[in-house]
């Protein structure tokens, strides 16, 4: 399940809904990304997430399908917020449910690595009265690369 939304989410409610009536689910691996106060040059006062409506949903749905195909999962959940967020607020929730924990953990890490490098979101940091667009991290590309299985996984490389 994919949700792209401005409003906050409740982790307990979202995970409970994901597992509701799924009697073979023993493992729920999840990840929450929060706005950190630490920015490059000083304390962050806020962060605005811009995204590409339409493409975002399309990319996240493709990511969900890929995870479900690759691991023996029951369900996948990706919630990504957009708009202006304050330090400590929730940005993203990824979860994978499965009969066993290994698949759930691996799929959840996969979802985050790909989301960081494929989902069309851009972060604008506010530090004092200054704003700056966050640069992509080489580390994130490397993290995503470890999951590559074919050439179609390299889509976000140079144009």
């Amino acid at each position: 399940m994919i949700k792209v939304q401005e409003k906050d989410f409740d982790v307990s409610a979202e995970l409970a809904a994901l597992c509701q009536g799924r009697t073979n689910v023993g493992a729920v691996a999840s990840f929450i990304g929060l706005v950190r106060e630490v920015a490059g040059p000083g304390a962050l006062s806020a962060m605005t997430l811009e995204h590409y409506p339409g493409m975002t949903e399309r990319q996240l749905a493709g990511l969900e399908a890929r995870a479900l195909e690759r691991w023996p999962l029951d369900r996948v959940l990706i919630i990504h917020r957009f708009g202006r967020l304050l330090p400590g607020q929730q940005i993203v929730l990824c979860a994978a449910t499965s009969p066993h924990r290994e698949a759930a953990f691996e799929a959840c890490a996969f979802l985050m690595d790909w989301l960081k490098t494929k989902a069309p979101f851009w972060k604008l940091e506010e530090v004092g009265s200054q704003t700056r667009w966050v640069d992509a991290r080489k580390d994130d590309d490397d993290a995503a690369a470890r999951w590559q299985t074919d050439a179609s996984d390299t889509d976000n490389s140079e144009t």
Partner: protein
Amino acid sequence: MKLLYFSWLRERVGTAEETVRPPEDVATVGQLITWLTRQSSGHAAAFADPSIVRCAVNQDYAKAEAAVGADDEVAFFPPVTGG
């Protein structure tokens, strides 16, 4: 052809969205970028370093050699930083 710009590409071009009619010999993403850089100084600034520009055609990632046509939605943006 509908063009969309995001993040600092949007700021440099000066608009989030525009409709363009490039000449017929503009048939790929790479040719479109070359043509766009000549349209304004904002466009030139946005595409000054093509290695940090990503493109999507009809909401899927596309490389420089990908085909583009009059009915396509073409988006340009920096490497993504969500999550």
